[in-house]
């Protein structure tokens, strides 16, 4: 997991499995990006093959923090399992998936 920031924007790269072992670190990285003044966050899930409810919780927490700071949180390069889970939980309505990081970074 890593984060790249550029002004108000941040790109966070997700882990292979965003489950309960990785979720706390994701939560911290998102909170730090917002606290450091980068609330326009793209979470790049290109390497992430699996997410569970704790991972979703970390993303929703980041989304809320980002919006409170006047930004947003968007997902990019979402794989099959992540898309299925977003759909099954109806979270695709608030955690919007984009094909690429570039697409997700447009029109904030």
């Amino acid at each position: 997991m890593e984060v790249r920031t550029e002004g108000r924007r941040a790109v966070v790269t997700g882990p292979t499995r965003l489950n309960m072992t990785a979720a706390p670190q994701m939560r911290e990285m998102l909170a730090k990006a917002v606290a450091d003044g980068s609330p326009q966050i793209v979470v790049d899930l290109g390497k992430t093959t699996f997410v569970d409810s704790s991972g979703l919780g970390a993303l929703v927490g980041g989304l809320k923090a980002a919006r409170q700071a006047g930004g947003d949180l968007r997902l990019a390069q979402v794989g099959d399992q992540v898309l299925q889970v977003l759909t099954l939980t109806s979270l695709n309505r608030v955690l919007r998936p984009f094909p690429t990081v570039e697409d997700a970074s447009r029109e904030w």
Partner: protein
Amino acid sequence: MSGDYTLEGLSVPESLDRLHDLLQQVAEEHPAVAPTDIMLFETAVIEIAGNVVEHGRPHGTVAWSFNLAVLPERLAAVLSDDGQEYALEEEQLADGRWAMPEDAFAEGGRGLALASVALDELDYSRSGGINSWTMVRHRREDSATG
């Protein structure tokens, strides 16, 4: 339950990786099982196992066992643990489904609901000091290479 695959361990987060690896092994050894079926079954298994890791007491010392059978019509598994009894709300159990949180911005409470919609059957029982979660997903389709 006797299954094709068995795994045992303690309820620590690292045990989730062993379950992920086991499901990957199942996918490799059963190419006729549709990837979506394996994927959603794995999603449910990790949710239930994660629940045991998170809520099992005493923390980190609860022993669990996992048995999985790959059958022509379904994937079936039982995850058992010797932790304390789970306090489940009766109305959630009535139709075998757990509800998603009404608040779209809730940061928790989706685990059992997600497992429930990924499966066709999800049952919890308690007997002799052992919790047992039974998970069944009917197989939807076979791959062309079956």
